[in-house]
C-alpha cells in the first residue's frame, strides 16, 4: 500500500534536500522526540538561526517528517512501499535510505504511541487477594462467613492507575472462575482460530 502525499506535504518536505544528511538525521531525531513528548517551538528557532532560514520553514520540515512517520506507521506499510512512496519526492538515494531507516527503526514505538490515542477501557494490571472469615459484626454475632477480598489494579490508556477493592463469597468465586475459563477456552475454538489465522 502506497502513501499518497499531498502537495502541501511535498512542499514542506522539499526543504530537506537543501540541507546536509546529518541535519536531516537531526530533524528525524527531533520529529520522533516530538512524537514522544510533544513539540517545542524553541527548537525550530535555534535550528533556523543555525541554518539561516525561517523558523517556519524548519517547522514545516519537521512536521512533514512527523506526518510521514505517523502515516507510514499507522498503515504499517512495508519497506518497499515506503521507498516507492517517497520516490515521488525526488530525493537522492542517500536521503531516501535515511528516511527509510528512520521509519523502520521507530515505527514500532510510533505505533505504540498512536495506540495510546485510541479510546479504550481501563485494562487489567494486577489482582491481589485475601481470604477472610467473618466471625462477628455489630449487627450479628457468632458468624462463620468466608469472604474473598480482592484488589483489582487497573490501568488507563494514559498511564493512570486505579485500584478497586472488591469482595465476593466462595460460591460466586467458583462461578467467576468457571466463566473466565469458558472465555479463555473460546479463543481456542475452530471459529476463533480461523479468524485469527485469516485476518492479518
Amino acid at each position, binding site marked *: 500500500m502506497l502513501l499518497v502525499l499531498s502537495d502541501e506535504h511535498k512542499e514542506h518536505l522539499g526543504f530537506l534536500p537543501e540541507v546536509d544528511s546529518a541535519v536531516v538525521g537531526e530533524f528525524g531525531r527531533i520529529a520522533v522526540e516530538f512524537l514522544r513528548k510533544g513539540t517545542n517551538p524553541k527548537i525550530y528557532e535555534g535550528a533556523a538561526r543555525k541554518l539561516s532560514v525561517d523558523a517556519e520553514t524548519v517547522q514545516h520540515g519537521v512536521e512533514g517528517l512527523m506526518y510521514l512517520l505517523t502515516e507510514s*506507521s*499507522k*498503515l*504499517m506499510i512495508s519497506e518497499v512501499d515506503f521507498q516507492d512512496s517517497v520516490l515521488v519526492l525526488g530525493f537522492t538515494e542517500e536521503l531516501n535510505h535515511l528516511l527509510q531507516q528512520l521509519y523502520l527503526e521507530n515505527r514500532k514505538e510510533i*505505533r505504540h504511541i*498512536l*495506540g495510546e*490515542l*485510541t479510546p*479504550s*477501557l*481501563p*485494562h*487489567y494490571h494486577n*489482582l*491481589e*487477594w485475601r*481470604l477472610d472469615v467473618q466471625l462477628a*459484626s*455489630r*449487627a*450479628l*454475632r*457468632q*458468624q*462463620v462467613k*468466608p469472604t*474473598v*477480598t*480482592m484488589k*483489582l489494579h*487497573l490501568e488507563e490508556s494514559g498511564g493512570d492507575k486505579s485500584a*478497586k*477493592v*472488591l*469482595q*465476593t*463469597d*466462595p460460591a*460466586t*468465586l*467458583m*462461578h*467467576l*472462575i468457571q*466463566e*473466565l*475459563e*469458558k*472465555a*479463555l477456552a*473460546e*479463543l481456542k475454538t475452530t471459529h*476463533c482460530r480461523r*479468524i*485469527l489465522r485469516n*485476518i*492479518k
Partner: protein
Amino acid sequence: MELSESVQKGLQSLADATFFDMKTFSVFIEVAFRSLLSAHADRSVLDQPEFKRLDQKLLKHCHTAATTCILEGVKQNADKSTISACLEDVGFDAERTEVFYTTYQVITNLLCYSFKIHSRSQPQTVFFLILIQYFGYRFSLGRCPPHINDVSWRLEYCIKNGHVHKVNEPSYLISLNVENANNGGSSEDLHFSCTMEQLQVANMNLNGCIPF
C-alpha cells in the same frame, strides 16, 4: 441479653395480664414476628381486632420492645435458656415465655425449610438477613467493599482503529456486576479489558483464592 430500660418497660407491660390477656398476648407475639418478616413496612400491622381496646401509645411501645428483644436474641444467637431468663426478668410467666419461644422457633424453622438453607448456614443468620431486608437503611451490617455478584465477558478481535491500522489482536472485555451494600444495595458494572495472557494470569490468581 442486655436490653435498655425502655425496652424492659415495654416488655413488662406485655407481661401484664391487665393489659394483655393470653389470647391478646399470643396474637401480639405472632404479629411482632410477622411484622419483622414482611418485605415492606405495613402501617396497619397493629390494626388487629384484639388490640382495639388497648391504648395505642402502649401498643406501639410494646411492639417496639418486642421487636427489639427478638432482634437482640437473633443477633446474639440466644438459646432457649438465655431468652427465658431475659423474659422472666421482665415479669413473663412460664406460659408467656413458652408462647414467645415457640413462635421464635416456628418462624426460624419455617425459614430454614422455605429457603432451603445449606447445612453450614445458621438459621438465625438467615432470619436476621430477612429482618435486615425489612428494616432496610435503619440497620447496618457493617461496612464492606462492593460485592461481586456476576461476571460477563466478550471476546473481540481488533482489526484496526482510527489511529492504527492492522492491529489484528484479540482482547477480552470483562464486566463485573458489583453490588454496593453501603449505598442501598445499588449495583453497577465494572468494565475492563485484558489480553489473553492477562486473563490467564487473573484466572490463576483467582484459582489461588479458593479456600478448598
